[in-house]
């Protein structure tokens, strides 16, 4: 039998043990969380049998409904805005000859990925306070603006990767065949970019849906997204309702990841 020579991590002692341990640590809590969302009792630690009661009570909870709606709305709007901006940014950074300072531009676009989130949150808080001071507007739009902004780099990454992998002669061929720049974009660039755009939008959507830190700092009085509502609940009585909400959020995320994965597979 031909064995590959050289270092093979799988052959190291303890490899399997460490791997299994890591997976256990990562997934046991999540599995427990999902399990206890079906708990018939009010405790999040003592199992009292299977029931849908927390899903039903969550469904009936007006506050949860309101927070869920805001979360969804926020995720849809901010991922749409962020993705549009990201497409433009990706086009501008890939469809041109290398230029001086392109690393700087790249770093600036991806700034929210590198700066600690709490710093961005505080900065936004102060910045919006300033605007509030001058305009007097204290509504919910700030949250939408903040989410749209910090989702840009997450949408930008897959779109840029897709654009860089795209054969430039395709666009040349289209313009050679009488396609005006706008029609070349619509008929060739956009359709080929579509999987990247979808991936970017979904990533932005999940990031927005999941965000706590920035949302907590920026949200208007009485405004709550699902994550901030849950955080608020944890400060008072903890019921398996939180588990139920988490499980639903988890289901959405997992679905997104699967769709993303399938799209990527199809591309290859």
């Amino acid at each position, binding site marked *: 039998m031909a064995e590959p020579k050289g270092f093979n991590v799988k052959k190291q002692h303890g490899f399997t043990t460490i791997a299994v341990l890591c997976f256990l640590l990562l997934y046991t809590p999540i599995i427990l969380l999902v399990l206890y969302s079906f708990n018939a009792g009010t405790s999040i630690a003592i199992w009292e049998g299977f029931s849908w009661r927390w899903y039903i009570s969550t469904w009936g909870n007006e506050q949860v409904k309101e927070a869920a709606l805001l979360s969804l709305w926020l995720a849809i709007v901010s991922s749409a805005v962020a993705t549009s901006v990201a497409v433009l940014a990706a086009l501008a950074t890939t469809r041109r000859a290398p230029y001086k300072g392109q690393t700087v531009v790249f770093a600036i676009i991806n700034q929210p990925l590198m700066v600690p989130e709490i710093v961005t949150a505080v900065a936004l808080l102060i910045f919006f306070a300033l605007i509030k001071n001058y305009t007097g507007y204290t509504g919910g739009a700030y949250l939408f603006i903040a989410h749209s902004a910090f989702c840009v780099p997450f949408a930008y990454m897959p779109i840029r990767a897709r654009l860089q992998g795209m054969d430039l002669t395709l666009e040349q061929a289209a313009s050679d065949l009488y*396609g005006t720049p706008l029609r070349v974009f619509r008929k060739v660039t956009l359709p080929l970019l579509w999987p990247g755009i979808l991936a970017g939008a979904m990533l932005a959507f999940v990031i927005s849906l999941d965000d706590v830190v920035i949302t907590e700092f920026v949200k208007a009085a009485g405004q709550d997204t699902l994550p901030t509502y849950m955080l608020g609940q944890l400060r008072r009585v903890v019921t398996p309702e939180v588990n139920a909400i988490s499980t639903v959020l988890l289901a959405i995320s997992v679905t997104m990841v699967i769709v993303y994965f399938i799209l990527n597979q199809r591309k290859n």
Partner: protein
Amino acid sequence: MIEIDSVSKVFGSGATAFTALNDVSVTIRENEFFTLLGPSGCGKTTLLRTIAGFNAPSSGSVRLDGEDLVALPPYKRPVNTVFQNYALFPHMTVAENIGFGLDMLNRPKSEIKATVAEMLELVQMTPMADRRTSEISGGQQQRVALARALAPRPKVLLLDEPLSALDYKLRKGMQVELKRLQNETGITFVFVTHDQEEALSMSDRIAVMSNSRILQVGSPHDIYDHPAERFVAEFIGETNFLTGKIAGQEGETLRVALDVGGEIIARQPPGDPAGQAVTVAVRPEHAHFCAPDSAEATVTGEVSNVVYLGTDTHFHLVLSDGTPFALRLQNTPERAADAKLGDRVGIRVAPGVAQVLRD
């Protein structure tokens, strides 16, 4: 008719500037199969892309039937390109690819459908119309790329080394096919290649390029038999070079006293040779054996190697001053006595067959 007039193209600036085209002028006639031939980096693709509109010349003009092309973007030029990597749209079917140009020209659906069907027929791809471009072979992709570029009936078809990705047999087939398509459509073809054999077998005229310049333009016959410069003679086929001095002129030919001894009567190059000292190019198949040191012998040498090649035999000779000389004879049944290794032989070159080079 395409008139390329003193076109130069410089990429970059300052210390990193690179001149890809250096004052290139050439006229490509209507309905001709015109080939730009040269080694990689000689500027042939840059010239093609300048006609297509993918890069603007730094100076000079490009006119098509009198109309200045330089100011027009690629999508306004009645010129289509077959790309080296075909550049087929992967998200479209074969038929959609072929119809793309007509669609962009806002032609009616019925006309697009008819033309696509006609093009599919022309390149024998009708059964593949609804396939994705990733589901067909390289040779078939090549045909689709051709059909796509021909469908809008361009005035000029530009082909950028379209056969280089195909294997030998397919390439041979496509060479014949391309020539047929050009005859049937009557469209001017501008073909870029580094393959001299391809250029010789397909072209009406060839422009040999080197170092960002066009060295010579002429029919395949002209280019092969009467190369104007050493580079052209070396790049296309095999050539012997003999140095000498001009001893006299007789009409179209020059009498050259060879440095190795003896005289040769050779054709004058287009444009006068630079000075008295010249190089004469002799094709291996244009030389014959004769008795050494006889009156009919142009030069005399010794056989240093004999290579049998089936249809031909290749003799490597060394002239009296050490200059190598190659001679090729066809292996016909009635061929007279061979030379053997080590033989002293005379080499006869008929008057006016050899060519004096310009440089």
